């Protein structure tokens, strides 16, 4: 197999990349400078050698534990549960959440062979039992998809016996969207979740 072929084969394994795109990317790289390619390779090397999941929350980091878990100013009484590590960034960027995270590493999807044992549920339960500072609230921030919802429900069942408050992100109409273009289900949810307007 030629070097280009093996590059194409590796690229194709990435999500959202079919053969056409893989070829385009490979030839784009080959056409560029060898320097650029080596920088990319070095970046990949760096990630492969140094990045690992935080043993506490599952987010990716290079230190022993991740910066969020290590930060003494974070509020240890709240844990926000997300499906994937990249969702931690989305919440961090809001600057509004001061608690800790827990990354499940996916969502329940028996159709894809993902059952409860494949997700970081145990880790979460032992954090609630054991963590210093005793988390008093778990926010289930799984997605509003059918799978995310089921994952939240399942987790809620596991958490119920523990003395911890369990909350779920609100569902509703995305900011900036016109009602006319929002589907009926979303409108119905937003209606059900309506709140008092304070003067």
């Amino acid at each position, binding site marked *: 197999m030629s070097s280009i072929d093996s590059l194409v084969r590796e690229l194709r394994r990435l999500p959202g990349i079919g053969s*056409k795109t893989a070829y385009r990317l490979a030839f784009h790289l080959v056409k560029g400078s060898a320097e650029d390619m080596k920088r990319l390779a070095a970046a990949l090397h760096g990630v492969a050698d140094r990045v690992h999941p935080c043993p506490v929350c599952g987010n990716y980091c290079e230190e022993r534990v991740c910066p969020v878990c290590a930060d003494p100013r974070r509020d240890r009484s709240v844990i926000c549960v997300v499906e994937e590590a990249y969702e931690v960034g989305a919440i961090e960027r809001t600057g509004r959440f001061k608690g800790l995270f827990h990354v499940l590493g996916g969502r*329940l*999807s*028996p*159709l894809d062979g993902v*059952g*409860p*044992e494949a997700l970081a549920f145990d880790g979460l339960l032992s954090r609630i039992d054991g963590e210093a500072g005793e988390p008093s609230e778990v926010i289930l921030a799984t997605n509003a998809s*059918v*799978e995310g*919802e*089921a*994952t939240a*429900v*399942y987790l809620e*069942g596991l958490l119920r016996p523990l003395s911890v408050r369990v909350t779920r992100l609100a569902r509703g109409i995305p900011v900036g969207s016109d009602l006319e273009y929002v*589907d*009926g*289900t*979303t*409108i*119905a949810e937003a209606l059900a979740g309506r709140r008092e307007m304070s003067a």
Partner: protein
Amino acid sequence: MVLRDLELRHFRNLGVQTLRFPPEGVAVIGDNAQGKTNLLEAIYYLECFRSFRGARDAELTAFSEDVFHVKGVLEGERPVTVAAGFDGSGKAKKVSVDGKEAPRFSAAFGRLGAMIFAPADVDLVSGGPARRRQFLDVVLSLNRSGYVKALQSYRKALAQRNAALRTGANPQAARAWDGTLVEHGARVTCLRAEWAAAWAEPFASYCSAISGGDRAALAYRADVGTAGDGAEAGAESGGSGAGVVGVVGGGDAVGAAAATGEAGEAQVAEAYRRRLAESWPSDVRRQRTTAGPHRDDLILTVEAPGRRVPVRAFGSGGQRRTAALALRLVEAATIRQQRGTEPILLLDDAFAELDDGRSQRVVALVEEESAGQVVLTAPSESDVRLRRPSLARWRIRGGVIEA
């Protein structure tokens, strides 16, 4: 809406042609296997982006080609251009409205406001419950906002729950799907039952008008409205026979609940939750979900001396064809009511299997009810029964249309 222009590229045997339709419509006349149904199939493709006869996109592509395109320019209160293309080499399908690619096909559903009727539609009546659920799913997807999403979520939750039951290791994990299953299943049930309740009367009067007096009825039978294993067994053995008539009442109860809106939906959700709890042991045993709207049916009955019987099992050929056509007319009326536009009627050899009396009454009905565009096909001039004398005549041969 009114279809003004239709551009075809390699759809079935229709080659490359652009057709300009008269606002009133047209009768397309041609021998068998010349492409009459293909033409209506192409038009209806722009309504929901798949073949009304269930053909796969690859089968719609001309034999020697990889790609087909269909584009329609529609006139109405808001003129619109709908286009669809399929590339078999990459299995890619694209749909656009006014030149903008639709993010999901469902976002572009129903722009034509068309109804299509073909003789094969008799299987709406004589086929299994799945055929009638599919009918409801299409009609509601095209006409009720929120239905597509509820249906898709329901199907996904159902498939996931069944997969969880099949893994067997931890059946309890399957219950995590109950919440979404109930939430979306209740909405699906209610929208279907509401539709059936609203259109039961018009259905009966269409049947009566076409048959010349038969008393037919339509009711939604919701699985969540029937309790116990007895009803379930009755439904599984084919949904026919006397047992089913008793069940219709259950369906009506759900219909009545559904018609009361938000509160009704909560009631149906509660009933569904109970059904799921009841059937849990059998779900675990059979490793699949045995309760829910995926088991519902639209029950069509006709009055026989002394009793009401399902058309499916006991109706004559004529009664079945009548009921099928009446369902399609109700579909057209739904479009008229929900979308506020006059439906485009696509009638494929519509009178082929109706007796003379029925044909004449259908013609009268269509002419009285529908002021919109009609595209009909027929094997010969004498089969064009619509009395509009001014209706244009086109000939079709080997896929080529002569206006």
